[in-house]
């Protein structure tokens, strides 16, 4: 199917629903999610792949959307924090963050939740040291809410171990 003057629409599966997007193939996934699909829980940050606030799941793996072109996720399964189903790994991590009040401004938090969710839900047993290394490679928090986020992480690791 083609439209009158635009490129062919690109098919995505976003939060379990198939969506068709008519945007430039090279448009960053971040702007497609926020401006074409209205999913605003994925934050716009540095746009340089450094702060992690734009992180979502692509086929279950944490991905920074500001540096991900739309064409590269054609037909892939994308999950955002907006669509977190109750009981999902994303919702579990989010609940732990709320329980520990693990935020100040909260701007960085959604991306961090997505990365932690992908790591604790993965096939390998989650390893705290590895998770911290990944968080430091991919995320920044300027408010200094880390102590609380670490408490939320430890709560999750204890639950997972139990």
């Amino acid at each position: 199917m083609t439209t009158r003057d635009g490129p062919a629409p690109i098919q995505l599966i976003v939060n379990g629903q198939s969506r068709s997007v008519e945007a430039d193939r090279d448009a960053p996934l971040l702007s497609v999610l926020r401006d074409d699909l209205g999913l605003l829980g994925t934050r716009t940050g540095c746009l340089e792949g450094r702060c992690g606030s734009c992180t979502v799941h692509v086929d279950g793996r944490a991905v920074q959307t500001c540096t991900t072109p739309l064409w590269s996720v054609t037909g892939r399964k994308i999950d955002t924090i907006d669509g977190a189903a109750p009981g999902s790994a994303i919702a579990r991590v989010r609940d732990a963050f709320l329980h520990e009040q693990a935020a100040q401004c909260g701007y960085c938090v959604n991306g961090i939740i997505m990365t932690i969710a992908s790591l604790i839900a993965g096939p390998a047993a989650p390893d705290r040291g590895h998770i911290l290394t990944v968080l430091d490679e991919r995320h920044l928090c300027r408010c200094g809410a880390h102590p609380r986020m670490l408490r939320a992480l430890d709560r999750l690791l204890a639950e997972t171990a139990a």
Partner: protein
Amino acid sequence: MLDRWIGADRKGLVVRSGKVELGQGIATTMAAIAASELRVDPLQVRVMPADTTLAPNEGYTAGSFSVEHGGPAMRVAAAMAREVFADAAARHLGAEADDLVVQDGLFRMPGQNAAISYGELAEVVDLHVSALDRAFPPLLGLSDTALGLKRPDLPAKLSGAAYVQDIRLPGMLFGRMLRPTAPNLRLVNFDRELVARLPGVVTVVVQGSFAGVVAQRDDQALAAIATARKSARWAAISTLPADDDALSWMDAMPVPPRHVATAEGEPPEGRRLTARFVRPYLLHASVGPTCAVADWRDDGATVHTHSQGIYPLRGQMARVLGVPVDSLTLIHAHGAGCYGHNGADDVALDAAILSRAVKAPVMVLWSRRDEMTWSPHAAAMRVELGAALSDDGRVTDWHCRVESAPHLARPGMGEDPNLLAAAEMEGPVPAAPPVVKPPVATPGFSISDRGGDRNARPLYDLPRLTVLHHELPQGPLRSSAMRALGAHLNVYAIEGFMDELAQAVGSDPLAFRLRHISDPRALAVIRAAAHSAAWDENDVGGEGTGRGLALARYKNTGAYYACVVRVAVEESVRVLSVHGAVDAGRVIHPDGLLNQIEGGVVQAASWTLLERAGWDKDGFTVQGWDSYPIWGFRDIPPIHTTVIASEDPSLGAGECAAGPVAAAIGNAVAHALGVRVRQMPITRDRLLAAIQGEM
């Protein structure tokens, strides 16, 4: 008028505070205070954003004053509103207002079932009454639910749209700015026609050296700016001095000092010590981009902004735009963490100019590079201390000289609008219209505190004290208020120097300080911190580990904070633990207090160990996150905080930890190495230089 603070409709109660949410959780504190006096569940109280048509004008949300000043105002307003509702409830229930009890948002006669709620009374109650005409109401105090309140704003923030960056108005366009890459450059021109033809571009706006594009989508606006940059020509409007670790450029700008404290008579005899401490320019470096949405119509404009002071900003924007103040409505929206005067005010003007050009709503987001170069920086500073010691090991004279770039350059604080676009646009800015009041109403910005001298006065008992402040009119980089202002370096210097003095008389740092403190609250805080860290005066340090102690009362009138920090010095400095104690008066929201302290500790440690912004011949040395590292998860030590129980008035706590944490790190490093690093940040290079005796 009471309805500027409190409102009611069938759904219940809403509160508005002139203090804005900056990520510090103040909305929660305000809800807790209001709900306690109204005797309703805090979760039933909706906190509305501040805007210039409805919210009280409380100047700026800054200086840790929100709880101290905004809190009591909210408390009294809520108690008055309760009384107005009680009168209405009494009429409804056929009782005397004084006999009614209110609980869980319901008014009733004790022992009776008939009850009426705030929501049910909303239609008959008029809160548009003057607060000044009413008798001072009885205050009920904090309820238990308020003390344990979870932040009501977090569930929404952790799921969907919540910030100014998430506002989507019908027909909204996106604007991006073209700004230079060196502090002394101004735009000359670029290929406007080419840019105007790019996909999605609606218009290109150029006024003097102000330039921006408006496009259908944000990614299109970004692409257009990237193209514009390729053909842009820039001109230098001044020569930059060389930047170095000692801030030698300050030497070329002599300014007469302001006397903050002046000692009389001749200085005493005795052993004298001196030391000089330096802090470079720092960045706010919020994770979210600076952003505003402006919607310009024929009869005026609405601007959504994360500014700290919507009223002062409105006055200056009206002045620059040449429109009546009343034609602008500013509405506060949550932004990413705000630690002081960042680019929020500037981008509000950018958005208004671009929206005026297209007569449509426009969102402007700043790029990471503009954010880290053109937002006001935290001011660079130098502090020179001198002291005399008596034979019995007491300080008999103290001399302090502070040199700093401006710490207070908010819109409306001087002659200039202090808005970036105003400086870039051609033509003189009209003089301030008389309706713009300078923000003197906010205490802490009075002449006695220019930011650079904040906490320059030690809290110790000193028989002689001289404090001089040289405030440079303008340094090479734009600077203004950032969290703690001068307190970060002043406390670093004072507390470092106290350790040097203690060492000079062979005294333990804790014992030496105790000898110079008579303020009981300061004593309680420093003892609590030392106790929780199991301070051992026989710990000789060395071997790569050390511990340091520091204490301050923020602004000399705010919250007290003391801490003991342990470090390991390896390749670089690793913080092993922070044991702190705080006295912030009566605590309204305990978890909010701890959150503010933890965040303050982490941010100040990051400033002190890692951060520096500057310039070289190619322009700004910071271009983005890669050139401005900050603390991450693996840097975080255990942070213990003892909260001193107090019935004194509540004090803000967001800034009190910064100075003491920095100083305790410096002292711990000195304890570990035997040499002191007097220039921040305490990087690997500085450690090596200190060890080699170069500092």
